[in-house]
């Protein structure tokens, strides 16, 4: 019993900042800046949400305070996230399946290269890429950001999918091969349906890691494209805590829903397929 109480109080400490953020988005400026801070007893106020998304202008025709129209920022994050995850998945499925099944000469070298790609400080990719993108006009485009996020997620996707494909019995491949099916057909018709769950998990984790990525999104996106973390860091300069809290609350709810859907495989994703839960 003591153990349970202790465990729950630790969980409360970890969830407290999230609680603090969400409640801050509903506080008015008086409660937000009160000392001692008001945690529970405050007047609920939705004006921050109205201002962040520009609703108040539509509803009240009142241009008296700053409006931000941040819906397009969330759209940017969604386009980049879904685009890069789809591309990651396509590349990852074929590579992951091949690495899972085949024994080739440079297999260990390839896996070490994939891990080394995971190690790269993102700034050391972003600086050279900035100049390359500038030359080929990919700076500040969705395609440019989708490509770099695909690269960032590839080590995770390839190694995680490999570990899911490893769990599909090799007997299936062998039998189908004896029956005369081609390798590509075996993958499409037999292996992918068997590993559906793992593929869905990889897709969702890729979206999450694209959603949270910062430094590449900062350098490749310039004026037109700003993903959510970039917009949040810009809002630091606007001294309006309630708007910042409202925007960030909205932006973390989709990831919370996604992660609770794949919670069982999350540890496996974090450890690139090595630790299973």
């Amino acid at each position, binding site marked *: 019993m003591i153990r349970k109480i202790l*465990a729950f109080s630790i*969980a409360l400490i*970890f969830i407290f*900042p999230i609680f*603090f*953020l969400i409640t*801050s988005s509903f506080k008015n400026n008086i409660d937000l800046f*009160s000392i001692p*801070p008001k945690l529970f007893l405050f007047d609920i106020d939705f004006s921050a949400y109205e201002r962040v998304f520009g609703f108040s202008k539509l509803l009240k025709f009142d241009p008296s305070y700053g409006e931000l129209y941040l819906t397009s920022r969330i759209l940017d994050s969604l386009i980049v996230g879904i685009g890069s995850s789809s591309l990651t998945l*396509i*590349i990852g499925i*074929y*590579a992951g399946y091949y*690495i899972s099944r085949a024994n080739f000469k440079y297999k260990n070298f*390839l896996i070490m290269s994939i*891990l*080394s*790609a*995971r*190690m*790269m*400080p*993102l700034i*050391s*990719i972003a*600086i050279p*890429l*900035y100049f*390359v993108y500038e030359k080929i006009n990919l700076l500040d485009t969705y395609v440019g950001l989708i*490509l*770099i996020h695909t690269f960032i997620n590839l080590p995770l996707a390839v190694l995680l999918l*490999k570990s899911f494909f490893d769990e599909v019995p*090799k007997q299936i491949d*062998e039998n189908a091969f004896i029956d005369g099916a081609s*390798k590509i057909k075996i993958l499409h018709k037999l292996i992918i349906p068997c590993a559906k769950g793992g593929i869905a998990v990889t897709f969702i984790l890729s979206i*999450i890691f694209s959603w*949270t*990525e*910062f*430094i590449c999104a900062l*350098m490749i996106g310039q004026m037109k494209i700003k993903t959510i*973390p*970039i917009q*949040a*860091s810009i809002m*630091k300069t606007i001294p309006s805590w309630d708007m910042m809290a409202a925007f960030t609350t909205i932006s*973390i709810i989709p*990831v*919370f829903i996604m*992660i*609770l859907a794949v919670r069982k495989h*999350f*540890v496996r994703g*974090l*450890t*690139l397929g*090595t*630790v*299973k*839960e």
Partner: protein
Amino acid sequence: MAAQKSYSLPSFMNSDSSLPWLLPLITMLIVFAIIPFFYNIYLSFHEFVPAKRALLFVGWDNWIRLFTDGVFWGSLKVSLYYTFMCLLIQLVLGMGIALLIDSDDPGFGIIRSILTLTLVIPPAIAGMIFLIMEDANYGLIPWLLKSVGLIGPEDTILADPTLALWGVMIVDIWQWTPFMVLILVAGLRSLPSEPFESAVIDGARPFQVFRRLTLPMLHKVIAVAILIRGIDLWRMVDYVFVLTSGGPGTATYTLSLYSWQRFTFVQWGYGATISLFSLIVILIVGNAFIHFAKVKW
């Protein structure tokens, strides 16, 4: 029969057609890892000269500047300190919490679900939450510390040269301790129960069981957790960017942030040199760790 006998799995997969399967992956690795790596080397021997508005060859200047630059050494120290301290604290705290919630009870399952939540918050946004909570005038944490008397009434966290780094580290520890907890719990849950039962029968004390049984059996899981967390700590830039932007002064510059900051000051060559240094360090240390800790994929 003969055809079946000659068939074996490796040979059919080992056919000469490996390229189509791996080509997209290898292309991505070349375009986004190999080319930037060599471009970085190229940049580290060049620098943008404002007077001529061009990138000119400067020989070893950037590297000489790197090793004589006090701010660089400071940021290297910050990166090392940040990586080791966070890793140590997260590992110890994570192990403690993992041992606490390692149980079949469904209540602890809920706790594990709660702990996943911090991990998916974009680090920049986690930084923003703590920016509010650590605000010098209206923040919750300074208010708490002041009322307990740990810091004086005029003290701040993020503007204080000695406390600022801890103000950043607390965010990392908050967000990523659950990472260690979840991985270690998964490891603990997968251990067989027989050795532990017989150890208890033999009268081993809990600490002995932990030292002699749990730790060695978790060796692989711990190694993977340290590797991945270490990589991410070394390249961390989001928190300092949001919370302190490297300040006060240069007290919280990490290598990545310093590199980015030089880049924005149009010292492209020097910025690239710093990032290349950081890259080489992590490639050597990371691959050596994988080799010596015998982490297998």
